[in-house]
């Protein structure tokens, strides 16, 4: 199974995922990336803030970015 690296880019800078994780395919890596974004945004919410300026890159072992997920894509915001 292929290894994917999920690199975070946000107001704190870049957090590179040097080790990576093995997933069956890019669809599963996408689901894990969304889950990951939601998890640290949840932790930020518990501290009373939510900063959606950022994205997560899914890269393959060679370093090529296969998909970019904006943090906005991970949550639905109802604010009307």
């Amino acid at each position: 199974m292929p290894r994917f690296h999920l690199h975070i880019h946000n107001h704190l800078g870049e957090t590179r995922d040097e080790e990576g994780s093995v997933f069956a395919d890019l669809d599963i890596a996408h689901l894990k990336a969304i889950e990951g974004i939601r998890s640290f945004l949840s932790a930020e919410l518990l501290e009373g803030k939510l900063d959606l300026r950022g994205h997560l890159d899914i890269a393959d072992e060679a370093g090529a970015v296969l998909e970019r997920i904006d943090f906005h894509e991970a949550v639905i915001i109802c604010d009307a």
Partner: protein
Amino acid sequence: MARCTTKEAVAMFINRLALRSPIGKQAQAALLDLPAVSEIEDVERDFVHVGDRLSHSCLVVDGLVARFAQTQDGARSVVALHIPGDMGDLFSLVAPNVTWALHALCPTRILRIPHHHLRELAEQHPELATAFWRDNVVDANILAQWTVNIGRKDARSTVAHLLAEMAVRHQANGLGSDHEYGFPITQADLADAVALTPVHLNRVLKRLREDAIVIKENTSVRIMDFARLAHAGEFDPAYLQLTCDDRP
């Protein structure tokens, strides 16, 4: 990471027991003479399965072992980590029908020690029975502490606590140093142990590294400032019961 011999692993187990319980020379010698079967376990493999009825306990000789609990649909969660010198399923001596699995997180060697030999030893040397009991209490204390960590602390504090705990446990078993210990655990397994996603864990580890507190390498942990690590994790080693106190 230096590899242990089986005798060294038994000696580490004796030292682990003797840290907390007085054990006479005869009892120590009897433990060293225990018949056991050595096995090498592959990475990512269960060597005790959910639902097994055990007739032996497993002493970790080298490597790293996780205990997993499992939901009915097969989802698993790390509920304990065992390092060389630990007998992670000692309590199966009195509760042999297990509801969890033991899993090698890296190439790992274990000694399988038959329950009936351990039982005989406990009957012949009551101080060993007490020492086994106390060892199980420590495992229960660790589990209780992990529950508090994931239930009541933020991610940074939970991760810092685990890395501090593993440092102290390695030193108590005569492994590692003040500044470094072997920890061949993947990001995914470590994330599972602290109830985070790997993405979130990676971000927390980056902050701890940038704050010059601790660095998690692929197969080891390098501690830059233990006092700050302990502070970040609200770590107090009292629950590890590292002093020998046999007063009634």
